[in-house]
């Protein structure tokens, strides 16, 4: 007997979560090994200066545990992870977990906003293009998508800064999440927009919003293309399907045919793609974070990588893998709710 809707979806999601644990473990070990193989000696890097003596470097190496064999290091690392300890960053001198926790909301806020902007733009564009395939509108959307993809985010980011900050003066200076002199709301979720709202500080909310909008748009531009294309393609299939013909045959209104019948079916593959796009954005937004001095996890991991700071990089990769699993799970649940056919497979 088939279980009903949500229950079955939850069971399936739980099963999916369990089955992803081995993959997470694999990611853990793989990044660990990769970091050891990469050139560069952290001990040299973190020694007091270029003139540091051999003894000093050896001492640092011993402190860091790098004198032990790689398997031993791995065991130490895994047991630390098991206790929830991701290690300490040599750059910031803080525990990696604390660093990530401080920076993750910034990245998530940026990525969520960007994805939201992208979806709000891409879905209508795709629908319009699908309603009139081959028309000027369709070609216009195609051109816009192509431009979005072929301009790298750091270029579009710089362009946006040039136009909206330098020329028009509409945007605040692109330095981080909030104006240096503005007061930060009491941290509850880490998402500034939400924290400001909770604190009832609408002026602060608006300031944070203005800071956010340019980096989010430059990220969104890059992912509008895949979302709009998939919307267009699946909308075309949906509009040409038998059930849309049925809907038209009984004289349903245009709105009902397009939105309730065609779009609701067409949106299913878009959910899947949106999940993938989100995960990719979260990791790949390092360029945007750099251009806008956004204090996110990606730029943090890049800095760590450049200075052979093992722990933050490993922590970052683990975090990304975890988020990827989680996002897939959410997509799965959404899909199960949106499509009643999934639960019986």
């Amino acid at each position, binding site marked *: 007997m088939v279980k009903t809707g949500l229950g079955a979806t939850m069971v399936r999601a739980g099963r999916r979560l369990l089955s992803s644990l081995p993959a997470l473990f694999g990611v853990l070990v793989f990044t660990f090994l990769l970091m050891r193989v990469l050139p560069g000696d952290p001990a040299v890097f973190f020694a007091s200066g270029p003139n540091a003596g051999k003894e000093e470097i050896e001492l640092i190496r011993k402190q860091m545990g790098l004198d032990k064999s790689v398997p031993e290091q791995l065991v130490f690392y895994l047991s630390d992870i098991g206790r929830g300890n991701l290690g300490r960053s040599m750059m910031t001198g803080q525990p990696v977990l604390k660093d990530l926790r401080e920076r993750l909301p910034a990245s998530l806020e940026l990525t969520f906003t960007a994805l939201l902007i992208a979806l709000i733009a891409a879905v209508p564009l795709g629908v319009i293009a699908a309603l009139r395939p081959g028309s000027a509108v369709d070609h216009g959307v195609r051109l816009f998508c192509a431009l979005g993809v072929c301009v790298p985010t750091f270029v579009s980011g710089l362009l946006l800064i040039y136009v909206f900050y330098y020329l028009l003066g509409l945007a605040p200076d692109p330095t981080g999440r909030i104006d240096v002199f503005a007061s930060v709301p009491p941290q509850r979720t880490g998402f500034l927009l939400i924290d400001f709202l909770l604190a009832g500080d609408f002026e602060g909310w608006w300031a944070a919003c203005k800071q956010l909008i340019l980096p989010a748009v430059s990220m969104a531009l890059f992912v509008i293309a895949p979302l709009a294309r998939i919307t267009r393609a699946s909308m075309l299939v949906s509009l*040409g399907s038998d*059930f849309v013909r049925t*809907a038209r*045959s*009984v*004289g349903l209104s245009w709105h009902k045919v397009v939105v309730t*019948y065609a779009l609701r*079916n067409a949106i299913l593959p878009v959910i899947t793609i949106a999940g993938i796009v989100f995960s990719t954005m979260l990791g790949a937004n390092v360029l945007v974070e750099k251009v806008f001095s956004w204090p996110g996890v990606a730029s943090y991991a890049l800095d760590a990588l450049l200075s052979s700071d093992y722990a933050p990089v490993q922590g970052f990769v683990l975090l990304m893998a975890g988020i990827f699993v989680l996002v897939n799970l959410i997509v799965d649940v959404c899909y199960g709710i*949106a*499509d009643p056919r999934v639960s019986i497979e």
Partner: protein
Amino acid sequence: MSEDLLRIDDLHVSFSTRRGLVEAVRGVTLTVKAGEMLGLVGESGSGKSVTGFATTRLLDAAGRVTGGKILFRGQDVTKLRGDDLRQLQGAAMSMIFQNPRAALNPIRAIGLQIADAILTHKRISKDAARAEALELLRAVQIRDPEARMNAYPHELSGGMCQRVMIAIAISCNPALLIADEPTTGLDVTTQKVVMDLLAEIAAARGMATILITHDLGLAARYCRRIAVMERGRIVEEASPKTLFRAPQHAYTKRLVAASPTATSRIEDLVTEEERERTAAVVSKPRPVPAHGTPPLLEVRKLAKRFDQGSAAVADFSMTIAGGESVGLVGESGSGKSTTSRMICRLIDPSEGDIVFDGQSIGHVAARDFHRSRFRKDIQMVFQDPNESLNPRYTAFDCIAHPLMRLDGMRGGEALRKRVEECAERVGLPLDLLPRFPHQLSGGQKARVGIARAIACRPRLLVLDEPTAALDVSVQAVVLQLLDRLRRENDIALLFVSHDLNVVRMLCDRTIVLRNGGIVEQGESRALFDNPKTDYTRKLVEAIPHIETGPALAAAL
């Protein structure tokens, strides 16, 4: 004479395609009176569905009415725009479609879909619409309608989906219902139930109906007037009785001949001129096997269970002698395809044994059977000629492939000769061999599929609904071909089909399956003339025979 509800006057429809304008309908004229049921019969590409879609204004964007008028209650449908059109669709005329499951929105509960249709034309509350939807589900005789209101199409059977579709179509009491192949793809018993329901509802509500179908027998059973279409034109229009007794047009004659009836023989399916080409080989009688000869195939207590479910096939035993043809009939879900696949060794049986030519092959894993020397001897022809040919293989490659894999032939002159010989045996013109499947017609593809199957000179040919996707005239030719091949090469046939008329003509013996078990078996003619079980009788009676049309009943 009552006034015409619908009058189609010299209708022309063309489609713009990549190869230019294609005329699908060229000058159709017909009338439908209120409450009448008209049959519109023709083979694929005859323009019968396009005529229906033009009437309900559901043509694709590429299709356009290029001439003529469609007058519905005196109003030209082709000129309607916007709201006037929506007033018409659903409220005054509606349509039901082939493939009912695809015609329903897969992610919307059926109750809501019916209510959508009601709310479009009536200004009532959502609750009232829901109540009406429930009432409609009752009207189309869906069991447990309260629970079904929240069901999704994938949870219903094909027949149930078609009933829901009928409920949607009649929700606003249209005056005209156009049914486009409403029962194609449904089981013969389901077909009867759905068609009876449709006819009953149409009669009770005084709806005029246009039944678009490729099945002459079906049209004859339910319609008093039948229009026959060929290549965009109506070639003949008459009552079923006149149509079958004295067809006037050459095409109608061919169509009537090709439609299997309760008494027709394979030779009767094509007209005189076409028969002559094959006449020479038909007459060779089949040698009676000597007593004590072991059967070619013996199946003992075969069973198949999928995963944890109940048995798809259980306790199935049969034998086939060399050169014999055996039919395997049953409704969808009866396990006939599963059985045929086990015998072909494409899937593994859960229990039982298959003995071919004295050797047990039931225990060779399906995965390894391609290495068995019996792979050559047991070949298969699949249902859909479009899906079962590799789109990237030419007809030549398709036929050559088994020769190279199973007969160990290399490319070159010998292979070319063998392929051409196979093509000749199935009547496939040699100049078609370099073509890809999409460049071939349905009948030609069916021939390629058969040529491929007989390429290695098998002794047993398993045919899984080989003509189900073909037009009747093509089916007639393919059936003749199969019968000739059997006689010429002494190939045993296991013919899986839901079309009882075809099985009766082609097969010496017939086995009736139901829910994975044998219900009845015996010599075909006796079994169909005098079925012993209720189930077989129900199956046989459900076949729309031409002789039992209402016109005949009225004439008696």
